[in-house]
């Protein structure tokens, strides 16, 4: 227990059977918040929106804790919930056509030509990621941002292993085209 906060320390491993929802969510929050937030920022291009998406996912997990089949399902649930909320956020932005205004990547601290070029490339990549078809985007996020295996990605998104491979290939190919276009 953390002496200052009275809560579980940040290195606590995983929720266990018999934990209360509050305790389990606390454990999961400390373990996964940062990683979920990073992916949500990359997906949404907005830190505020990403924080809201991750908060919502944890609130939803807390409210549905008794419906989880197994505490081990909590992590895939959280990843999936964050992706769903990112999808909704992107959909809203597509409607209002403000996608191009988003800036996911902080501007370079130094003003060198190389730093500016890398920054522009990253911006284009981030924008291209958000413009992928949803399933491709979510598969790419699971595989390369959450760094899940093909099987874990399939379970998280509720699709077949073959579909994961197909969407991952198509997604990477589209992003590669964008990267090539910046060269």
């Amino acid at each position: 227990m953390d002496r200052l906060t009275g809560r579980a320390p940040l290195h606590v491993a995983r929720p266990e059977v018999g934990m209360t929802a509050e305790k389990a969510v606390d454990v999961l929050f400390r373990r996964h918040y940062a990683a979920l937030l990073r992916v949500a920022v990359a997906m949404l291009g907005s830190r505020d929106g990403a924080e809201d998406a991750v908060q919502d996912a944890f609130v939803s997990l807390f409210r549905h804790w008794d419906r989880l089949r197994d505490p081990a399902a909590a992590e895939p649930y959280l990843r999936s919930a964050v992706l769903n909320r990112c999808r909704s956020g992107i959909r809203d932005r597509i409607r209002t056509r403000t996608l191009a205004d988003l800036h996911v990547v902080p501007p370079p601290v130094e003003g060198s030509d190389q730093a500016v070029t890398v920054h522009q490339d990253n911006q284009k990549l981030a924008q291209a990621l958000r413009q992928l078809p949803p399933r491709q985007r979510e598969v790419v996020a699971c595989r390369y941002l959450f760094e899940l295996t093909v099987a874990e990605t399939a379970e998280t998104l509720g699709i077949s292993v073959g579909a994961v491979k197909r969407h991952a290939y198509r997604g990477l190919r589209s992003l590669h085209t964008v990267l090539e276009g910046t060269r």
Partner: protein
Amino acid sequence: MNSYDEQRVIDALQALTGGITVTDNDVLDARDRLEKNLTPAPKRRRMVLAAVAAAVLLVAGVTVASLTGNKQGSAPPPVAPPPAPDLWLEGGTPPTAESMAGIWQQRSGTFTQVMVVQADGTFAYDWEGTDLAGNPGWHETLDEPPMSGSFELDGYQFSTKVYRNQLDWTPAWAQALMPDGTLHTVNTSPGADPAPATWERVEPVRSRAFDSAAPAQGWTAPVEGTDLVGVWLPAASGQELVVINPDGGYAYYPEGNVGAGHPTDSGGWALDGRRLVLTSDGDAGSCANGARVVVQAPRLRLVHALHGDVLWQQGDVVTNDCNLFGQSWVFQRL
């Protein structure tokens, strides 16, 4: 794309998240915010629970009164639908699995929700409302619905069992088929907003809501190909659906086949200047590989309607190798 290129893209993706700083203080601040969010059910939710409880009591009261009447030797009740459990359902009849089978759509502003009901007691529901309606992702919805499962009908009550996103769900609502062919629903899941809703039937018989005529003017050319993405219903006749997907594919579903997921034709589409070109891959067997439909000057028109916006598409068919779509190219987007 070779493995070197693939790794380069993966490295670039991972660099995106690597540049986002999350400090311990950020985590603690967010944890404090979460704690505030984990509050008991708000007043609105309690009011909804009270309304649902009142509806249950009303049904129970009516049932008891009916049973008491029978004990006193009164005439057997006439064959009539049982009393509707909600004012929103009055005037309708409880549906059967057979009468519900098909595709239902609910429009609300720019949102569209879609429910595919099969007579065998299974159904799929477009959870977020727009996956089937012009938003990229609808095609996966047809193949892999985000929420699907089984249902049971007991009078007006529609109870479901679904497994979605690691959770067992049992969404339930009361519903009635109305004389105009629409389906009225009231959510009865504990704690949920009752949200009275009207669903229009898309298949196998289309509701009158789809009978409106295409607007005469105000059409604009699509800015980009993705403007054409969606599930399109021919306005003139038939019950077909034409699906234009964001990955560059299209599929043509004849009457009743969307739920089963077997298109009559499929292939690729491209917006080539002022022409929309659909080229069959021949996989479905109805059209030869390479058969083309060419639509000159495709154009769009958004119509604001009382029960939600309707997007129309129109164009002039100049080539139709397979004769699948007919010469009239006028559609409403689902």
